[in-house]
């Protein structure tokens, strides 16, 4: 309970400093348009590529924006040594991690929700075929990115661990989750019944989320206290 309350306080603070004004919404809106535009440039769309690989394009955009958001998660605590105050406070490492991950997740989800209809218009995709399942996949995949990304960001605090080449491994670690999300999204964008391996990919994604959240919660205390 206390952990959750502290986590909420930290998430709220993070969101507050990001969302000072409603302009943040506008800028994430145009940011996502820009990324989709970039992807459209790379692949001459209009051809059948989108219908087959829509999920790939969408998640690439998500991965990119998420990297940017999550990179700042702990970096925000560095000026003025705010991290010291947090570590010295009774908040546990787990609550710190949870708070930061939730804040990143919320920002990220905001961008995803904006992206989706824009994606629909610009790529002529009917994305609302299976809306609830799609949101489910967005949540699961989004959490995977927020979780791994936050751990990665925490490494910026700890010099010793940061130099262990861990950062190099961090992003590639995400690949299974992203791959699962892409495939699932592709399936959900297609008309017709789900292919048989839908459930299998879903299980992979859920398993990934569970494993990494557990690992992160267990390890974050070591990362933060020198």
């Amino acid at each position, binding site marked *: 309970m206390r952990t959750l309350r502290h986590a909420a*306080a930290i998430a709220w603070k993070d969101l507050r*400093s990001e969302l000072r004004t409603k302009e943040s919404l506008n800028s994430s809106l145009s940011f996502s348009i820009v990324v989709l535009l970039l992807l459209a440039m790379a692949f001459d769309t209009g051809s059948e590529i989108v219908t087959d690989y829509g999920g790939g394009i969408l998640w690439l955009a998500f991965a990119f924006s998420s990297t940017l958001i999550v990179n700042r998660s702990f970096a925000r605590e560095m000026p*003025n*040594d705010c991290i010291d105050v947090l570590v*010295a*406070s009774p908040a546990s490492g787990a609550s710190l991690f949870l708070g930061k991950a939730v804040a990143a997740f919320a920002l990220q989800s905001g961008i995803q929700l904006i992206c989706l209809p824009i994606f629909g218009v610009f790529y002529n995709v009917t994305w609302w075929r299976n809306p609830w399942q799609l949101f489910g996949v967005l949540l699961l995949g989004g959490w995977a990115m927020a979780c791994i990304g936050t751990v990665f960001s925490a490494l910026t605090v700890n010099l010793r661990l940061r130099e262990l080449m861990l950062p190099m491994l961090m992003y590639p670690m995400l690949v299974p989750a992203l791959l699962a999300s892409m495939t699932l999204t592709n399936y959900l964008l297609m008309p017709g019944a789900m292919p048989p391996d839908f459930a299998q990919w879903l299980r992979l994604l859920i398993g990934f989320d569970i494993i990494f959240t557990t690992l992160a919660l267990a390890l974050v205390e070591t990362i933060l*206290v020198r």
Partner: protein
Amino acid sequence: MSEPAVATAGVWKYFGDYPALRDVSFALDRGECLALLGRNGAGKTTLLRILAGLSGASKGDVKIYDGVVRASATRARIGWLGHAIGLYDELSARENLQAFGALYDVSKATIGEWLERVNLAHVADSPVREYSRGMRQRLAVARAFLHGPDLLLFDEPFTSLDDKAIALLQSLLTGVRAKGVTIILSTHQIREAMELASRVALIDRGKLAHFGPRTEEMLGDPGYIYRTFGTAA
């Protein structure tokens, strides 16, 4: 009330090969105010960070109110003020105090009181980015006092405060000390510290060169301690 508020036994701290603290042992009773003195690079900050649980000792033992340093209950009793102010530039003073207060269950009213007390109520809603250096330091002081800690660990708290703010901080510190709060502060503004301190410690290149009560000689003459207990270097 018998056990000491802070007790260290044979604390060493290595940075690489360099021993920043060498065998530091002392015990400080409750309600005392310790002035931690020492030249630049002596190890004051290192010691305070170990006491606050922000870094681990390489060797030795630290007890705070008979608890281990990193225990959550212990942490809740500590008020920390480091070299940097530990505030978010883009949040306002009030939002900053709210953010940290939430970690200690501090009420809104208390936050308002502290903003009054450090004379920042009139700018409480502008972002800290716009504060002058002394205003930031005052807010940091308020942040450290906010949750009514039992042990204050202050690293050079007088930095960039003007005469009035120093007087204010001194009165705040004597005020809480009267209520039994233990205080450890490091500083180079010896005059101001001596008015408060009941004990004085001198760290000399990582070693605890002196630990004892504040005497009358120290009050008038800021150079006295270095001359008497320090090494020549």
